[in-house]
C-alpha cells in the first residue's frame, strides 16, 4: 500500500525533526511566557501587542451573530470578502485583503483542511454548532507552537471546535438545539460532553441540515425586472464529530477525533436571460481522523504533534451533458495524510524559539477521461525566534516549502523549493497606556492546485507558485474609562500587498480548453479601522458596539495588460460592518449591518461590468429561560431585514428577507 509506505516515510521525517531540539531541551527553568500565551482551552483576551493584526470572534459574540455558517460569521472581519454564490448550498469562499482565496489557509483545530484539488475551502459547509472560536491572522501569530505549512500562507483563518467545559461540578454537559425558518430549514443538533475521570473526557456532536433552499429573487437587465424562484437549491447534510480528550495538569493536552460530513445539494447555477433553472447536483462525503498531542517536557520545552488522515469524496452530476456513456457523472476522491511536529523552547525569559516541520501527502483520483492521478509531497518547515522585552516584541521566522508532484505522464511538474522570511515587530511606547504600534513583512506562496496543473489533458505545463509580499503597519489602543463608555478598543492598519506570478486561465485553441499561465500581478493598498466599545448601562444591562471599515485599492499591475491599473474583479473600494448587542437581564438583542461597496465583476472597470453596492441589516432578539434545572434559550432572527435583492457574484442572486427561529436546551 502506497499510503502505508508514505506513512512510514512521514514518521521518519518526524523523528529526524525532533532530535536537534530534544538535545538542547535539558534545562528546566519555568517560563512565564509559556504559560501566558499558549493556553488553548481558554479564549484569548485581545492581545494588543501581537506583531501582526488579528481578529477573533468567540463566545457570546459569535453566538449572537446568529450566523448559519462560518462563512456568515467571517463577513464581520475587516479585510475579508466572502465570495458567496447564494443560498443554503451555495459555495462560499474567503478572500482576504484582495489577494485571492487561495492565499488563505483554513485551519480546523490547528490543521489545514485538505484542498490540493482547487485550493479553496467552502466555508458554507462548516456550521457554527461545534465552533467556539474563529480567528483571522494576517500572517504568523506569536504562539510559535504551530504547524509549519500554515506559515507559508499570507493569511490564516482558524476554526477552533468546542473543548469540553464542565461547570458546577457536573460530570456532563448536554445541549440540544433546533433551528428552523426560511428555505424550509430543519436543523436539529445535539452536543454531549462527558467526563470519564479527572483527565479524560469525550464529546459527541451531531447535526442534520435539511432545506429545500428555494427563495424569491429578482432578475434585472436593461431596466427590465422580473422575479423568479431559486430552484434546485436544496441541501440534505449530516455532520458528526466525536472526540476523546486527555488534559492533565497543564502539561499534557491531547485529543483524538473523527469527523464525518455528508451532503447532497443542488447547484442552482447562474441566472441569465431565458435560463433560470439548472439541474446539476453535488454529493460530498468528508471524513477525517485527527490526533493531537501536546506535552510540556521539563519546564522549557513544549512539543505539539499532529496526525491527520482525511478522505474527501465528491460526485458531480450534470444531466445537461449526455455523453456516449450517459449523463455526465464525475467522482473525485482526495486522500491526505498530514503529520506535523512543532516544538518550542524557552531559551531565556525573553527569548523563545520554535521549530515546526510538516509533511503532507495528497492523492487525487477521478474517473474523468485522461486523468493524470496526481500525487503531491509537501514538506514545510518553520523556524522562529520570538523576543519579548518590556516595550518591544519581535517575531522573526524563516519558512521553507518544498513541493514535489508526481503524475501519470512522461512530463512532470518541476519541484517547488522556496525560503520565505517573516519579521514582525510590536512596540509599546508607554508604560501606563495600552497602546502599541506594529509593523511586519512577510513573504508567502500560493502553490498551483491540481486543477491549475492537471485538469487539462496532456500538456501539463510548468507553473510557478504565486508569490506574495505583505507589508503591514498599524496600532492598537485599549482604553478603560467611564465616560462615555467603559472600555474602547481602537485598531488601525495600513497594508501593501503585492502578488506576482498570478495564475490566470486563458482559452487555448478554443473555449473548450483552458491553459493556466503565470501572467498577472496585483498590487493592493489597504487601510482598515476597527473600533469596539462596551458599556454597562444599568446593573444588568450591557451594550457592545463594533465598527469595522476597510478601504482597498487593489489594482491589476500586470505590464501590458488591457486593464492595467484598474481595480481587480469583485474587490470593493469600501466595505464596512457594524454590529451592536444589548444584553438586558435574560434578554439579548443583536443588530448588524454589512456594507460592500461598488465592484466590477470583470477586470475592465466599465459600466457593463459594474455591480451595485449591497448592504444588509440583520436583527435578532432572544431570551434565556430556566425550567427545572434545564436552561433554555429561544431566539428569533430576521436577516436582510429590508429585503434588498443583491448579488455578490454576478448572476448568482442572494436571498431577500429571511427568518430563523432557534430553541436550545442545556443540561
Amino acid at each position: 500500500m502506497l499510503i502505508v509506505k508514505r506513512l512510514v516515510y512521514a514518521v521518519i521525517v518526524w523523528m529526524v525533526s525532533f532530535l536537534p531540539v530534544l538535545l538542547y531541551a535539558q534545562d528546566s527553568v519555568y517560563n512565564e511566557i509559556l504559560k501566558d500565551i499558549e493556553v488553548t482551552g481558554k479564549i484569548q483576551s485581545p492581545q494588543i501587542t501581537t506583531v501582526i493584526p488579528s481578529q477573533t470572534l468567540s463566545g457570546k459574540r459569535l453566538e449572537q451573530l446568529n450566523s448559519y455558517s462560518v462563512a456568515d460569521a467571517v463577513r464581520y472581519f475587516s479585510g475579508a470578502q466572502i465570495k458567496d454564490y447564494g443560498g443554503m448550498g451555495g459555495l462560499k469562499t474567503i478572500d482576504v485583503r484582495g489577494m485571492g482565496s487561495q492565499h488563505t489557509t483554513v485551519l480546523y483545530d490547528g490543521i489545514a483542511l485538505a484542498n490540493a484539488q482547487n485550493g479553496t475551502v467552502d466555508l458554507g459547509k462548516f456550521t457554527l454548532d461545534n465552533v467556539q472560536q474563529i480567528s483571522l491572522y494576517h500572517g504568523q501569530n506569536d504562539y510559535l507552537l504551530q504547524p509549519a505549512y500554515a506559515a507559508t500562507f499570507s493569511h490564516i483563518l482558524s476554526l477552533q471546535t468546542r473543548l469540553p467545559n464542565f461547570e458546577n461540578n457536573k460530570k456532563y454537559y448536554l445541549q440540544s438545539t433546533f433551528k428552523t425558518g426560511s428555505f424550509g430549514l430543519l436543523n436539529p443538533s445535539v452536543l454531549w460532553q462527558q467526563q470519564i475521570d479527572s483527565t479524560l473526557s469525550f464529546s459527541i456532536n451531531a447535526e442534520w441540515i435539511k432545506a429545500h433552499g428555494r427563495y424569491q429573487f429578482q432578475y434585472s437587465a436593461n431596466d427590465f425586472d422580473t422575479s423568479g424562484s431559486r430552484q434546485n437549491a436544496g441541501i440534505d447534510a449530516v455532520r458528526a464529530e466525536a472526540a476523546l480528550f486527555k488534559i492533565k495538569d497543564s502539561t499534557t493536552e491531547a485529543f483524538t477525533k473523527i469527523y464525518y460530513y455528508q451532503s447532497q445539494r443542488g447547484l442552482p447555477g447562474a441566472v441569465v436571460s431565458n435560463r433560470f433553472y439548472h439541474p446539476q447536483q453535488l454529493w460530498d462525503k468528508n471524513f477525517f481522523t485527527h490526533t493531537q498531542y501536546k506535552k510540556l517536557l521539563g519546564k522549557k520545552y513544549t512539543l505539539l504533534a499532529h496526525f491527520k488522515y482525511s478522505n474527501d469524496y465528491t460526485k458531480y452530476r450534470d444531466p445537461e451533458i449526455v455523453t456516449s456513456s450517459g449523463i455526465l457523472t464525475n467522482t473525485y476522491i482526495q486522500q491526505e495524510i498530514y503529520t506535523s511536529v512543532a516544538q518550542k523552547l524557552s531559551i531565556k525569559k525573553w527569548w523563545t524559539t520554535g521549530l515546526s516541520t510538516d509533511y503532507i501527502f495528497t492523492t487525487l483520483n477521478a474517473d474523468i477521461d485522461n486523468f493524470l492521478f496526481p500525487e503531491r509531497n509537501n514538506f514545510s518547515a518553520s523556524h522562529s525566534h520570538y523576543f519579548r522585552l518590556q516595550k518591544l516584541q519581535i517575531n522573526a521566522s524563516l519558512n521553507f516549502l518544498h513541493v514535489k508532484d508526481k503524475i501519470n505522464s512522461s512530463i512532470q511538474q518541476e519541484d517547488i523549493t522556496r525560503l520565505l522570511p517573516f519579521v514582525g515587530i510590536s512596540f509599546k511606547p508607554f508604560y501606563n497606556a495600552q497602546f502599541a504600534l506594529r509593523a511586519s513583512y512577510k513573504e508567502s506562496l500560493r502553490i498551483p492546485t491540481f486543477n491549475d496543473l492537471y485538469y487539462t489533458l496532456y500538456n501539463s505545463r510548468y507553473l510557478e507558485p504565486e508569490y506574495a509580499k505583505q507589508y503591514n503597519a498599524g496600532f492598537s489602543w485599549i482604553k478603560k474609562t467611564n465616560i462615555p463608555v467603559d472600555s474602547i478598543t481602537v485598531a488601525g492598519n495600513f497594508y501593501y500587498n503585492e502578488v506576482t506570478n498570478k495564475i490566470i486561465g486563458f482559452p487555448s485553441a478554443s473555449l473548450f480548453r483552458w491553459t493556466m499561465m503565470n501572467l498577472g500581478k496585483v498590487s493592493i493598498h489597504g487601510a482598515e479601522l476597527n473600533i469596539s466599545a462596551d458599556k454597562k448601562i444599568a446593573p444588568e444591562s450591557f451594550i457592545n458596539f463594533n465598527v469595522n471599515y476597510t478601504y482597498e485599492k487593489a489594482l491589476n499591475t500586470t505590464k501590458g495588460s488591457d486593464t492595467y491599473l484598474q481595480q481587480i474583479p469583485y474587490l470593493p473600494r469600501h466595505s464596512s460592518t457594524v454590529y451592536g448587542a444589548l444584553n438586558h437581564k435574560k434578554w439579548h438583542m443583536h443588530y448588524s449591518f454589512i456594507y460592500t461597496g461598488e465592484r466590477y465583476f470583470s477586470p475592465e472597470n466599465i459600466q457593463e461590468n459594474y455591480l451595485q453596492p449591497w448592504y444588509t441589516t440583520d436583527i435578532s432578539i432572544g431570551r434565556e429561560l430556566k425550567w427545572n434545572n434545564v436552561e433554555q434559550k429561544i431566539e428569533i432572527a430576521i436577516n436582510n431585514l429590508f429585503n434588498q435583492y443583491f448579488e455578490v457574484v454576478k448572476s448568482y442572486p442572494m436571498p431577500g428577507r429571511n427568518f430563523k427561529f432557534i430553541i436550545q436546551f442545556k443540561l
Partner: protein
Amino acid sequence: MYNKNIVFLLASLVVIASCRKNDQIPNNTQPIPVTNGFYLLNQGNMNQNNASLDYFDYASSVYARNIFKAANPNTDVLGDTGNDMAIYGSKLYVIMNGSNKLEIADAITAKRIKVVTIPNVRNITFHKNKAYVSAYGNTLNASSANGVVIEMDTATLSTTRTIEVGRQPEGLAIVGDQLYVANSGGYDAKNYERTVTVINLNSFTKIKNIDVAINLDKIKKDKENNLYVSNRGNYNNIVPKLYFIDTKQNIVKDSFNIPVSNMTIAGDSVYIIGTVYKPVTFEAVHSFNIINTKTRKAEGAGFITDGTEKNIQSPYGVAVDPVTRNIMVTDARDYQSSGNVIIYNAAGKKLQTYITGLLPLSIVFTTK
C-alpha cells in the same frame, strides 16, 4: 466611462433612426447587392449574461456598441454566450448558447420579434424559407447523447421538423437540397465524433455519414458547391486540420495542415484564422491563411499583408464583405476585456480598428 456609454447609445440611436425610415414595412425590404454595414455579435463571458450586438454603419463610419439594448429598451437582454448569427430575408437570427435561445429580430431595426427556446443551441443556416438550427440538446429524446437539427419556418417562426444527428453537432452548410452537419462529439474526449451527417431536406432523412476526422467544427461552402470542414483535433497529438469534401461524391478529397479557429469563404478564397501553441513555452502562434478554392492551395503569407497582424492578440472571428471584399478580423484580446474589430481592405492593408464588446465573434453584413 458612463458618459462614453451615453455617447455610444445616442450614436446607436442615430444609426437606428437613420435606418428606420421604412421600418413600418420591414418585410418588404428587397436586398440589392450593396452592403451598408455589418452587425457584430460579441459572445460575452459564460454566466455573465453579457453578450452584445454592435453595428457599424459604412456611410457615417459610426461604430455603435450595444445596439440590441438600445433597440429593445426595458426588455430582457440578448443574454448569455452568443455563438452564431445570420440574416435571412428581413430578419436577424442570433444564437444564444448560454441562454438556450434563438433571438429573432428585425434585420434593419434590431427590434426583437421572437425568442425561441432551444437547449444548448449552436449554429444556424437557411434554405428555401426554412431555418436549420443545430443543438446539443436533444428535443426528441432528452436522454440521448445525440444532438438535433431543428427546422423552422422563417415566416411563422415555428418549428416544422426535427431530426437527430451526431453528438454535439456544430457547423451547418447547404448544397442543393442537402444539409451537411459537422458533428464534434466534444463531450467525449475518448470518443469524439468524426462524421459529417448528410440530410436530404425534401424527405428530411439522413442519407450518409461522411467520415472526416475527429471533433469537427466549422463547415463552409465554396462557389463550386464543395465544402471546407475544420476540426479541433484532440488538443494533444492530433492537430487541428482543414478538410475538403467533394459534394458530388460526398467524400473527403483533400486536407490542409492549417489550424482553424474561424473561417469564411468569399469569391474564390477561404479566409482562415487559427492559433497553435508552441510546445513547452505555450506561446501562441497565430496564422491568417488564405486558400484559393480553384487551385486548393494556400496563397502567399496570408491575407494580412502590411505586417499589422502582430498587433492582434487573440484572433477570434473573420468575415469578408461580399461586395467590397474588405476583411474584418476580430480580436478577443485577453478574453475578459473589450475586443477589437480590425478592418482590412481587399489587399490586406489595415484601414481601421474599432473597440467592440466582450469576445467579438460573428459578423453579418447588411444590404440596402
